[in-house]
């Protein structure tokens, strides 16, 4: 046992292991970073954003300024320094600067005594507080009696009533516990400081290309009657059918009426792009090549090379058995993959977190890990078998490369030819199952099998019509675990017994 642990430790600290771990981690994190930074709109995580919801009311003595600051989740941001100005548009040199810091509820209130001059605009400048950037710079017109305005920020809309000196904002915010569904924040401020009066919230999932806004409430789904607050985040009961669709949200006065009080005309509130889905998609192409190649090379460098060259003989004459040397090398390789994949996933997760604001769910974490770990170990197991029979390094490496071509690059084509030769109709379900069974003969398809299991869906990614529920074609937790166990253990055990009993 000591000899086994000794050689295992050396395998794990060997040059090849370190190189492989660094390679997998760097490649994965690099690819994730590149993918995320290209597709990302904003690389600032929601809790590092700050949005200002401004309201300025003109009084007989001057102006009442109320700024509310919330982060990308709609949670109040306290301690944020705000610099703003009241601007006289007719005499643009006339400016009154305001400076202050938000309180524990995210508010900054101040009264400006300015009776001379006609200040019509309220402007903001980016401010900075440790770790938080305000992400916009904007200005609004100052509300006076019988005026209205809208459209201040992207994904944030306000409407100021013409009769009672109040302002409504509606904006899209991220959900801290789900990257899939976004919330909407409603903010209300009024000249007399009252809470929001009752209103009825409606929403509409836009599945046709054109609609005319605003949509009458009777054509929309009713969320409910809301009111009595100053700011609040709501989560609409959207389901997967709203995935990536535009959602229109409108708040109507309780009396009904054709015009909404405030409207969010366009926002994607349901998006299934979770961190896991993103990582899964990012890794699929590079790992398709990287994992089997490293599986093959690791078996070659840990074992096949030494066995063929005779280097292993000078070790076998030591107080150790062939079986234990085999195990220490094989398990050392498997553990290197486990360590490399966990590190790669964890670091990529952090990279992607900055984009999605959520961490991998455990089901994604384990399905990605399990799928590729099994594939790597299976390919290396196949090379361990080859190493028992071939006596030259070139022969082993050549077979490994051949295996890569056949079982990775051309496997699906080869299986398609076989299906064609057997006159299997892939349009019918029995043909689909047959094709799936043939595909499963190569460990290179195991990661996708896991993905089918996780998504519950087997078939083309485009168009639901051409696919099947995974369980209906035999992809169940049990069958996938059985295939995984087969690939983990059968090549390993077969080569282990050969290594123990052959010269």
């Amino acid at each position, binding site marked *: 046992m000591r*000899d086994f642990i*000794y*050689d295992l430790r*050396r395998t794990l600290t060997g040059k090849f292991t370190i190189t492989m771990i660094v390679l997998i981690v760097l490649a994965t994190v690099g690819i994730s970073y590149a993918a995320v930074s290209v597709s990302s709109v904003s690389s600032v995580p929601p809790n590092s954003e700050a949005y200002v919801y401004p309201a300025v009311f003109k009084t007989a003595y001057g102006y009442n300024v109320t700024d509310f600051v919330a982060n990308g989740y709609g949670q109040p941001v306290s301690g944020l320094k705000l610099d703003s100005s009241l601007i006289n548009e007719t005499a643009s040199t006339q400016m009154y600067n305001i400076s202050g810091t938000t309180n524990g509820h995210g508010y900054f209130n101040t009264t400006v005594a300015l009776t001379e001059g006609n200040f019509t605009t309220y402007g903001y400048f980016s401010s900075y507080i440790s770790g938080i950037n305000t992400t916009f710079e904007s200005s609004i017109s100052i509300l006076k009696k019988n005026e209205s305005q809208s459209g201040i920020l992207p994904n944030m809309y306000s409407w100021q009533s013409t009769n009672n000196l109040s302002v409504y904002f509606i904006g899209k915010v991220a959900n801290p516990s789900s990257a899939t569904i976004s919330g909407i924040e409603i903010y209300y401020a009024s000249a007399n400081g009252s809470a929001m009066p009752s209103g009825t919230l409606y929403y509409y999932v836009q599945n046709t290309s054109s609609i005319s806004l605003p949509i009458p409430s009777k054509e929309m789904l009713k969320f409910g009657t809301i009111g009595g607050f100053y700011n609040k985040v709501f989560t609409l009961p959207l389901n997967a059918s709203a995935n990536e669709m535009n959602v229109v949200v409108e708040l109507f006065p309780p009396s009904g009426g054709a015009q909404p009080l405030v409207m969010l005309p366009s926002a994607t509130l349901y998006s299934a792009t979770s961190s896991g889905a993103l990582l899964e998609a990012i890794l699929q192409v590079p790992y398709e090549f990287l994992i089997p190649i490293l599986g093959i090379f690791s078996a070659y460098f840990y074992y096949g090379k030494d066995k063929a060259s005779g280097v292993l003989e000078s070790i076998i004459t*030591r*107080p150790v*058995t062939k079986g234990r040397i085999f195990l220490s090398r094989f398990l050392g390789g498997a553990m290197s993959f486990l360590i490399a994949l966990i590190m790669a996933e964890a670091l990529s997760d952090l990279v992607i977190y900055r984009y999605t604001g959520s961490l991998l769910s455990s089901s994604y974490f384990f399905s990605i890990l399990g799928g590729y770990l099994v594939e790597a170990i299976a390919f290396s197991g196949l090379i361990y078998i080859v190493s028992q029979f071939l006596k030259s390094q070139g022969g082993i490496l050549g077979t490994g490369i051949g295996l890569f071509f056949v079982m990775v690059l051309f496997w699906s084509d080869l299986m398609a030819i076989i299906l064609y030769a057997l006159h299997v109709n892939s349009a019918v379900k029995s043909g689909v199952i047959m094709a799936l069974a043939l595909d499963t003969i190569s460990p290179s398809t195991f990661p996708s099998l896991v993905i089918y299991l996780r998504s519950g869906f087997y078939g083309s990614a485009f168009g639901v019509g051409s696919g099947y529920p995974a369980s209906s074609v035999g992809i169940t937790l049990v069958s996938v675990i059985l295939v995984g166990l087969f690939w983990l253990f059968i090549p390993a055990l077969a080569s282990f017994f050969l290594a123990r009993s052959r010269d």
Partner: protein
Amino acid sequence: MIHITHLTKQFSRNQPPAVKNLDLEINDGEIMGFAGLNGAGKTTTIRIVSGIIFPTSGKVLVNGKDIVKEKVAASKHIGWVPELPNFEPTGKSVQLLKYYAGFYGIPPKEAEARAETLLKKFNIWDARRRPLKDYSQGMKKRFSIAAAMMGDPDNFLFDETLNGLDPEGVKNMRDFMLSLRKDGKAVFLSSHILSELENVADRIAVIKRGEIVKVIERSDLSNLGEISLKIVLQKVDENAISMLGQYGIPEKSGNEIVLRNLNIPSGEVYKVSETLFKAGYRVISISTESEGLEDYFLELVGSGK
């Protein structure tokens, strides 16, 4: 001590066994020569004893431990010096010796000190920073001896170790093996040249087509390996022959006399020429030959029908 009983190795069904029913015992403090022509089965035997390949049948005990069933315990006492040393080409000597030492449970610090002593002893300490693939054949051989000594085993297997060494190397190696014998180690040394073994081995097992045909004891060896004298006189007569009779068995052919079964030590051969000279014979040449041993060897192992 190595105890080989009924050892047989058959590599494939359609080939005769490479080793057949071989029995041999190599005792502590003994150097056992292992002589046979190319392909006789020497390396095969040694590789079985060292635990690299499995016997088809039969048993090998190393210090009483079965090399197959108690591999770890048996291998602790085996030092194997291969015919063609094969080490991690990019490896460095100290690091590799330390790796081997770990299998014996030798702590790294101690292993490092031991590696240094051995590398210095075999005169390759200066090459410790070079990868093993850059070593000369002789250096590789010396490194593999150092590697075999790393676990301080009781039994040594040398496969053709004298082969390919320069005269100084052969002398050093002989002295080294004699020192192992003095330390009570059992040494098994193969060669396809019997005379290479005669000055070092206590006994020589001769193998032919996988079978031991003869174990030559030290006493037989001195008879066989005995040098004969080839004496060329200007004129050979009966008197000269009878005079030479006191030193051995003379045999005349022309003006040449071959004197076999010498009864004087090789160091006193000068007495023969002295005697002839005093009797008034003109000695043209006198030379020693040990052809008897090789003849005997070839007779034993020769391909003959």
